[in-house]
């Protein structure tokens, strides 16, 4: 048993770190590290920088233009980019639809769809959830009727993250209304510019516009955009949900946010001294760091198991639960650390118009970030659902 990284892995970390030092624009890391709003251009710009380096798709095999990294390398890359304040790589194209296309799509689909995902020329979004189908995804109702060489789609998707920018959406649609719940679902790729699609923004409680409703009104989709077999979509959906679990603990992100908390607590005052010197606040931070430290080891254990060929399986649910709890605790404590200055609501300042800003970015973003990240325990399978999964899969209850 050796918990240290191999010399090769350490060299890889150094390489990533140096690359980030030389290539991550400070303008971007400043936005990320202060929780300022990232534009579509910011996200695309960063992915294109990585693309030039061959690192845009950490999880892809070499065959499709990925770097062919081991799970440990992926984990190192994720940690280093998070710590450096790199913008996130959006999962919808790279980590969600792409693996499905790689594994179940036709050669034509692979050639057509994968390269623009890699190069950030196509922006994808996810069409899974519906108003009546959240945790109980299989009860989805959006219909796709086969008419000759096309499908006609009617229905509604919701919680479509950053769908307002999307070129494409991958959808679960019901193709056989008479089959049992999980059967009769198909996996369809739909051009967002098709007539009949409309996108309605959902404003979130932090003031941001991050998610959308997407409506389909007799939208015609070429049959060639069906992935795999008709009515087998649930299989692909399950594959997708089970596939991309690496990084689910968010340890790198957690470390970055913990560092921010410490920095903020060093700047903010309590009774005339830095807040971080207050014994009880310091102990609160220490407790979080201890939890995160243990989680990092759990994450590495799972990563090592994957590396040696085991499936991460439901252990990933544990990582998701604890990782999101820790992150939410950090956001709460940051909001607490800034005291009354968590109150001012100046979204324009977080978009770059800082003339009227009444407090540092970290204070102005503290409450919006806290509220926005309530999503961590809701989206992507709520923590309650994760506990059900563990209960069933590991414990056999």
């Amino acid at each position, binding site marked *: 048993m050796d918990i240290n990284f191999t010399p090769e892995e350490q060299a890889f970390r150094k390489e990533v770190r140096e690359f980030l030092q030389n290539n991550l624009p400070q303008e971007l890391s400043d936005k990320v590290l202060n929780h300022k709003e990232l534009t579509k251009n910011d996200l695309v710009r960063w992915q294109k920088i990585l693309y030039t380096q061959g690192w845009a798709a950490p999880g892809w095999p070499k065959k499709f233009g990925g770097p062919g990294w081991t799970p440990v390398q992926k984990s190192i890359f994720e940690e280093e980019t998070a710590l450096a304040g790199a913008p996130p790589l959006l999962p919808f194209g790279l980590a969600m639809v792409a693996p499905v296309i790689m594994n179940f799509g036709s050669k034509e689909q692979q050639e057509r769809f994968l390269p623009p995902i890699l190069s950030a020329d196509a922006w994808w979004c996810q069409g899974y*959830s519906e108003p*009546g189908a*959240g*945790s*109980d995804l299989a*009860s989805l109702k959006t219909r796709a009727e086969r008419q000759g060489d096309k499908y006609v789609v009617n229905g509604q998707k*919701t*919680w479509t993250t950053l769908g307002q920018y999307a070129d494409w959406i991958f959808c679960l649609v019901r193709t056989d209304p008479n089959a049992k719940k999980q059967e009769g679902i198909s996996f369809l790729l739909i051009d967002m510019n098709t007539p009949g699609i409309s996108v309605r923004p*959902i*404003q*979130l*409680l*932090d*003031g941001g516009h991050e*998610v959308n409703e997407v409506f389909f009104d007799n939208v015609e989709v070429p049959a060639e955009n069906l992935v795999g077999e008709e009515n087998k979509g649930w299989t692909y959906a399950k594959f997708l949900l089970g596939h991309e679990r690496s990084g689910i603990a968010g340890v790198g992100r957690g470390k970055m946010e913990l560092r921010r908390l410490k920095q903020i607590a060093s700047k*903010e*005052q*309590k*009774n*005339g001294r830095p807040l971080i010197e207050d014994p*009880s*606040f310091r102990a609160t931070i220490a407790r979080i760091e201890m939890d995160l430290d243990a989680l990092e080891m759990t994450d590495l254990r799972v990563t090592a198991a994957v590396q040696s060929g085991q499936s991460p399986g439901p252990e990933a649910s544990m990582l998701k639960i604890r990782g999101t709890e820790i992150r*939410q605790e950090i956001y*709460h404590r940051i*909001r*607490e650390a800034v*005291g*009354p*200055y*968590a*109150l*001012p*609501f*100046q979204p324009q300042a977080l978009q770059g118009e800082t003339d*009227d800003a*009444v407090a540092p970015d970290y204070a102005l973003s503290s*409450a*919006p970030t*806290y*509220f926005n990240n*309530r*999503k961590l*325990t*809701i*989206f992507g399978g*709520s*923590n*309650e659902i994760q*506990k059900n999964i563990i209960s069933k899969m590991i414990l056999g209850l």
Partner: protein
Amino acid sequence: MDFSLTDEQRMLQDTVERLVQDQYGFEQRRGYMQAEGGFTREMWNQMAELGLLGVPFPEEIGGFGGGPIETMLVMEAFGKGPVLEPYVATVTTAGQLIADAGSDAQKEAILEPMVGGELILAFAHGERDNRYSVTQVSTRAERGGSGYKLTGHKAVVLHGDSADKLVVSGRTSGDTMDAEGISLFLVDADAKGVSIQGYPTIDGLHAAEVKLDGVEVGEDALIGQEGKAADLIELTQDRGALAVCAEAVGAMTMACDMTLDYLKQRKQFGVPIGTFQSVQHRMVEMRIELEQARSATMKAAAKLAGDSAAERRHAVSVAKHQVGVGGRFVSEQSIQLHGGIGMTEEYALAHYAKRIAMINNQFGDADYHLDRFAADMEVPETA
């Protein structure tokens, strides 16, 4: 021991609850927020007409003659809006402070117009680095000419952008951290050297940064004794704390009720999500936190009405700590149990959840009150 309300209290409660129920619908509230300063003068005037702005003041000046219990009743009902108007700023903090310690001239000039809705006040004590401290004041009030000259920066002054007059704390002697040497002044919002930058707060209210650049005020602007304001500031902050605790109880009640309704209606896997036991137990825990917050707030109100400062500090800290910790739980879990819909601005729940959470950042957060309580804590002699 008697937890029942008097007839007058019950009428007051009914009045405010009806006001909120009839005129603080979700869409109505969104409309009010668009007005300058984040609330409408129409509603403020209506509150004045109903006598709400006079609740804690003597009948001679048009008040209701109420005490902290009455404030609690009003604020709890307001929490069900949650109401946007500058009630805590004007009535509970600045207004009561003047009623307590103002000169006769000050009272005459301020209280009646305030009760009538014609004068809005704000309590400008906080500063950039003082967090929730009672006595950390760096704003200087130098004697000069026929009065004082104020220089400093007052931070996150609730409804400071709507105020006609500000109650400002400034140091007439000593250093920033000294308990002695703090004084209070009545300052016109449009006085020379005052600049006010207002902004909305994330929970839908308003606040302002107030900068004082050599603002000259007369002798008659001094409230109470020079250099002796610390106790009055603490009392005022405790009154503010009680008011927002009661508001939190109202908002927590709504968050619990909305969540319970949702659990009964929303179906997943073919059944209402309220049939899942882990969800049921979470809902039970939310209700326990609500009841504990209600109890602690009632006690704080009773002790604010009493004459022991030690008991008041004790009870207010218990209440504000409970509202901080238990409110966080209710706010977060009400969103969690709603799922995505609980995070949307178009849905009323998010607004209650935000207000409950942000109340922790006003008048001392849970840590502040834990510190104060622990420092005061009685330790029995050992045998």
